[in-house]
């Protein structure tokens, strides 16, 4: 059973972003093989977005969602902290996506350079609220004024967790990944209460356009706060 192992606001926790990255270096190859299909919620968002100049996938993993973006954008950038996952992405998406190794809280992209973005199942791996909010501000910074992005995170509504989805705040936990040999590798997660997800977005430089709960995840469509209407 997952259980809270630290307060959501504790800043330099036992888990660092570098440790999270190393976890995916260890399990990346196997993890990637189990992440074959794009999520339908992401597919709908990309389909409805129409064509874009530059698209970005933050936490692109093996590239399954960057691949969708390549169908609508002139240029796609896939960013991940893990080299093992980027290697898997190279095999999957080849030339159609420009791959970058980087940190979601300090994006190596120019302000306003992105017209469409997805930030899927990655925010919940950042081990402090400060880091999670920093990553939302970084997403806001790189988005062009008219750009939109889809942000998703695991939520307390997931049936895996015995948690109250109406709670005000979520919790930190560790979810094991089991390698083919039986070895388990713990992965840090912050499980978001939907109200907390809304609050983190509202307190960032992003504006929440819509929020949906689907398959136990929060999906927020966001745009930069300074958007000119």
């Amino acid at each position, binding site marked *: 059973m997952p259980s809270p192992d630290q307060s959501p606001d504790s800043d330099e926790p036992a888990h660092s*972003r*570098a440790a999270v*990255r190393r976890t995916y270096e260890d399990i990346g190859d196997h993890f990637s093989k189990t992440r074959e299909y794009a999520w339908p919620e992401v597919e709908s968002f990309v389909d409805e977005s129409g064509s874009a100049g*530059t698209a970005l996938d933050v936490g692109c993993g093996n590239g399954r969602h960057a691949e969708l973006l390549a169908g609508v954008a002139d*240029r796609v*950038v896939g960013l991940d*902290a893990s*080299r093992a996952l*980027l*290697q898997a992405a*190279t095999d999957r998406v080849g030339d159609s996506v*420009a*791959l*970058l*190794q*980087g*940190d979601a809280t*300090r*994006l*190596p*992209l*120019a*302000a306003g*350079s*992105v017209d469409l973005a997805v930030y899927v199942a990655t925010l919940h791996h950042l081990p402090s609220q400060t880091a999670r909010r920093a990553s939302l501000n970084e997403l806001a910074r790189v988005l062009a004024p008219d750009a939109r992005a889809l942000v998703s995170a695991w939520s307390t509504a997931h049936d895996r967790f015995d948690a109250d989805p109406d709670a005000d705040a979520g919790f930190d936990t560790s979810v094991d990944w089991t390698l083919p040999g039986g070895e388990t590798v713990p992965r840090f997660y912050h499980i978001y209460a939907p109200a907390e997800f809304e609050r983190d977005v509202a307190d960032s430089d992003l504006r929440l356009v819509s929020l949906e709960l689907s398959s136990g995840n929060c999906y927020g469509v966001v745009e930069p706060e300074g958007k000119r209407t």
Partner: protein
Amino acid sequence: MKEDLMEIICCPLDKHDLDLEVTERDDGEILSGQLTCTECSETFPIEDGIPNLLPPDMRDEAPA
């Protein structure tokens, strides 16, 4: 990486432009080289065609 990526990438630390130094190129693809921040001079390697723009504190510990 392709050279036109230089239009949008920047230093993850101070967001200034990067200088590109190519070590190995295959067709239009840059396979290895180095990116250097024009402001803070931090360097970022390009390995196997993928720029490593992780801030220094996120990289692997220096090998023994």
